[in-house]
């Protein structure tokens, strides 16, 4: 029973761990360059299909670029986007949420109003506007998602803060003469961190999917960067004749997001947090 319950966590850790290793070391290990085109070798099928060659284990794309090299670089870009977005949104959301939850009253009302406003903004439309105004780049994608995806952090840290702030040890800290700064940073924050870790995994998965969707629409990472969403977008024209060109990046994206979500679920059970999402 115990091992069954731990299975999601282990699976998630294996998948995410593998993805992180691939992102860090993969591009250096793959023999081919992700950008070098070779029109003579377009659509070489992967090694396990008829006509495949060990030179290109995952085949080549419509411009003859090595698919494995592009995939590995794509995973690195996806993780970078996810990580940056989570750090950025975590800072914004946690600050707002803790302020609202701790001070209550009008501060809380203002925070909740800002959260409501944020929920009313469609991210895709904002991204469209931003791309129109400043042009698309990896940095723009990371910033856009990071600056817009903080509402879950805010809501969870707000309710967790309210819960923790009413505990006796916070009152005891007041009685010991602690400052308000210490109460918030030293007493409350360490006790809501486990909620925030779970939110971080959920948001990371969402950020990666969102980035892929933006790239698919041509609003995200610009070509020739091999973002997973962009690879799927480029492959969709050929999917009926050469299904593997869309299957490979699609499966990679699926596995990555699933792994992060499993990790989040497992951590939630492990940390015993009653986190909402």
């Amino acid at each position: 029973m115990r091992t069954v319950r731990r299975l999601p966590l282990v699976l998630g850790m294996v998948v995410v761990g593998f993805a992180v290793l691939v992102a860090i070391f993969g591009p250096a290990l793959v023999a081919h360059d992700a950008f070098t085109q070779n029109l003579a070798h377009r659509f070489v099928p992967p090694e396990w299909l008829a006509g495949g060659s060990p030179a290109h284990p995952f085949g080549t794309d419509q411009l003859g670029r090595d698919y494995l090299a592009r995939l590995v670089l794509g995973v690195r870009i996806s993780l970078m986007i996810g990580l940056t977005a989570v750090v950025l949104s975590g800072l914004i959301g946690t600050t707002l949420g803790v302020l609202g939850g701790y001070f209550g009253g009008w501060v809380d009302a203002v925070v909740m109003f800002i959260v409501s406003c944020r929920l009313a903004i469609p991210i895709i439309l904002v991204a469209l506007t931003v791309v129109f105004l400043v042009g698309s780049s990896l940095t723009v994608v990371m910033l856009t998602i990071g600056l817009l995806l903080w509402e879950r952090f805010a809501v969870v840290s707000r309710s967790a803060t309210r819960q923790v702030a009413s505990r006796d040890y916070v009152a005891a800290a007041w009685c010991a003469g602690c400052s308000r700064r210490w109460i918030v940073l030293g007493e409350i924050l360490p006790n809501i961190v486990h909620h925030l870790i779970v939110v971080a995994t959920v948001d990371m998965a969402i950020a990666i999917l969102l980035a892929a969707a933006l790239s698919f629409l041509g609003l995200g990472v610009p070509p020739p960067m091999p973002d997973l969403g962009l690879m799927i977008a480029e492959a969709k024209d050929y999917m009926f004749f050469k299904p593997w060109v869309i299957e490979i990046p699609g499966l990679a994206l699926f596995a990555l997001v699933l792994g992060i979500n499993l990790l989040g679920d497992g951590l939630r059970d492990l940390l015993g947090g009653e986190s909402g999402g």
Partner: protein
Amino acid sequence: MSPVLEVRDLRVRFGSMAAVRGIDLAIERGQTHCLVGESGCGKSVSALAVMRLLPRGAKREAGAIRFAGEDIARLPERAMRRLRGDRMAMIFQEPMTSLNPAYTIGSQMTEVLRAHRGMGRAAAVERAEAMLTRVGVSAPGMRLGQYPHQLSGGLRQRVMIATALLCEPDLLVADEPTTALDVTVQVGILKLLADLKRDLGLAMLLITHDLGVVARIADVVSVMYAGEIVEHAPVGQLFAEPLHPYTRGLLRAIPVPGKVRRGEKLATIPGIVPRTEVGFRGCAFRDRCEFATQECAEPVAERVEGAHHWRCRLASGWLEAA
């Protein structure tokens, strides 16, 4: 000798609800003052008002709180913070939640010393160890490295007490310090508090609803009802000759082994505590009191006889007359 803590006409309200309606308290060095009353009578709110830690929504209205001769009711928050944990400390009811689960016992205890006394780490650890030994914790060195969840309820309460006493405060406010503990553990904690009070010359304000605790530890008792102190007397006098009908009702409701027969119902006080709005007049107990008359709807003056104060229209000796 002037009292360590002197509270005059303290009033606290939550919106239109008057939670504390003008109480007076005076506690001297080496004295345990028990504040007794049922849930919601305003005893915890009074304690929090003394520490100036009232929750949001509560408003302290009138009243002077003199601590060691200084009126702290008007002290700026900064100066108040220096007093809390140093000169005045507080312990709480729930030992399970009053230690921060994110830190070891040691870091929570030394934090206080480092903040108030500017002690170095080694000196603070040594002092914390000595204090844990003083409150009867065995193997204090090991306990300092442990987290709260590794300790039992009684042990945690001892740690709480040790933490509160680290800076040798003049006043210790204890809000139901034994309520959440097993009876056998309760006795140990009460004995410890009594010893500490004697040895350190603490002034202790102890809040409880348990008259057994009062009998064991109090020097002076104030009985609270609906935000007022209805009776105030040295402990022996209060138990021997309760003068307010509410106190009498409380004492009658205590089951005494051997005296209560099988099948016999315990005495109760009929009715419920009234909701006292701001501007409530007269005796709050009149709806539940068997001696109530028309007169009780008028404001009641406090009667004083020696050290015995009570707030009732009935003079002493009413019991014999009735």
